């Protein structure tokens, strides 16, 4: 147990330090995604852009897109801001475990006498990194909310969500026409604010689940193939609207909180926990059988 604690402390200290530049990169992408989304709100709904709440700032980053329907010539408008933030998160955890295994890690496994301890420690490091990425978006949103003197609650006004769906396209849907005609303030104030806290919690859980699966692929195949798998899951989650894809729960626009027939968050919790447990267990099973000596310097 003591050995495991030391392994974990090493990973927390050196792993986070090694990936610090990538966390800064994630923060830059979060800032950029937020800024472009904020410009959309500012143009369409200037009265809301001045006093965005903490929850609305979070929504600007995690909104994603409504369910896509491939009918009547509808093009698939991929939610790039959401995607860039999550691919950057995947990049931040991409290769520390595999690099560690190719270098000192294999010696550490032998000295510690337990493969399971090494693997579990790496999984907990991935969980920590996932939480740090969400923490970065929260810290950024909090700072913006404080600067804007907005509310510090996780409640969002429905009008802000309408603007995010409409984007810059002034004629895309009825909601945006309301905004263009200046009626959104009335519409938004008539509707109760929505609390997105549970949706953010489930999104965090699903992010950690996807990152754990990526780590399994990264350690056993190749870090870039792990990222490619994450990209595939995120892409398919945005295209389809099915409750068994974990990426769905990271698109806040589709959660039951914002959408009438949206995703059930309880299913998201089960899915996130289930995938995480399976990823850790499968990763350990495979890790117990691999040749550690052959892994040295493999991907350099």
């Amino acid at each position, binding site marked *: 147990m003591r050995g495991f604690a030391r392994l974990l402390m090493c990973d927390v200290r050196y792993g986070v330090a090694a990936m610090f530049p990538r966390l800064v990169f994630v923060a830059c992408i979060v800032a950029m995604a937020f800024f472009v989304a904020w410009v959309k709100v500012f143009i369409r709904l200037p009265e809301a852009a001045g006093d965005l709440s903490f929850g609305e700032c979070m929504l600007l980053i995690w909104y994603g897109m409504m369910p896509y329907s491939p009918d*009547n010539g*509808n093009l698939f408008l991929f939610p790039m801001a959401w995607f860039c933030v999550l691919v950057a998160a995947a990049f931040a955890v991409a*290769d520390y475990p595999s690099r560690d295994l190719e270098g000192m890690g294999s010696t550490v496994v032998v000295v510690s006498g337990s493969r399971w301890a090494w693997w579990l420690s790496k999984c907990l490091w991935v969980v920590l990194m996932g939480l740090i990425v969400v923490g970065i978006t929260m810290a950024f949103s909090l700072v913006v909310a404080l600067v804007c003197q907005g509310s510090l609650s996780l409640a969002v006004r429905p009008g802000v969500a309408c603007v995010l769906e409409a984007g*810059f*396209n002034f004629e895309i849907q009825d909601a945006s026409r309301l905004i263009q005609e200046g009626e959104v303030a009335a519409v938004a104030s008539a509707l109760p604010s929505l609390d997105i806290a549970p949706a953010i919690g489930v999104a965090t859980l699903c992010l950690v689940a996807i990152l754990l699966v990526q780590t399994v692929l990264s350690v056993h195949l190749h*870090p870039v193939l792990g*990222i*490619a798998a994450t990209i595939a899951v995120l892409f398919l989650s945005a*295209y389809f609207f099915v409750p068994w894809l974990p990426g769905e729960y990271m698109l806040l626009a589709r959660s039951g909180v914002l959408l009438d027939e949206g995703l059930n968050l309880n299913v998201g919790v089960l899915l996130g926990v289930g995938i995480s447990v399976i990823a850790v267990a499968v990763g350990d099973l495979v890790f117990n059988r691999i040749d550690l000596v052959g892994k040295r310097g493999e991907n350099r």
Partner: protein
Amino acid sequence: MRPLFKLEMHRALHCWTFWACLGVSVVLAVIGAAEGIWKYFERHGITDMYLETSFINQYALNAFTQWLPNAVMSATPNLFFFAMPLLIGLAYGWSWRSDISDGYAVSVLVRASRKEWERAKACAAFISGGLLIMVPMLVNLAIVFCVLPAETPIVVDAMWNGVWGDAFLSEMFYSRPVTYMAVRFVLDFVLAGLWATAVLALSRCMRNKVVIVVLPYIVMLLFKYVSSSLGELVFNITGASWGALAIVDLLRVRADFGEYTWVGVVFCAVVLLVISWLIPTATRKRDVL
């Protein structure tokens, strides 16, 4: 130049990353073909009942519209083109850094000039990148044309296939689809090849293989996001815009947002070409030891 080029081509086409990436992209292309065929038969079943009472084209979805770069409303073709820049970088883009760090470059450079070696390497990366996109497109084409009718698409069916009249080369797509396919092959080969050489050039500035492959990809996605968002904004204010500029959009018949023109294609090609030329030239005098 010739023996070096041969050697580099052999290495590029025989490394496991190239085959792994080719495998993944071919699998995606096959799934894309299956999705296109499934959509065709699904729609065919729906249109049958309206044939006697309404004007409806049974072949609005056909072999041309369901081919990989043209199936803009399907999931797998979109995923294919989103993943390709990453896979192209992984196939051989990291090799310069790897050759330097494992000592291979030193043993080559005592026998050949650095300029020749780098040129051979860039050519090999260009061809491997081009092949990586061309082979799956050919596989997809073969499957789709074996199953679906090769009916010339008509422009009134744009709402079914997503290729509106203002899409890039749409006039050619609707009038001479076979020529369009040839142009698309050449264009995608060149753009994918240039992306591979640009990643190869950027590998001089980075040490970690994962960073070499993934960072240019993320930066390209960011560029796509910012340029298309700004383009959308400018378009809604002024009525004119630059359209899509990122390679991930230019590989398909149309972009996520709006259209693109030859200007966008040339811009992208020139930027990739400048990166591929400028970085190696600027770093040529660096010590390879």
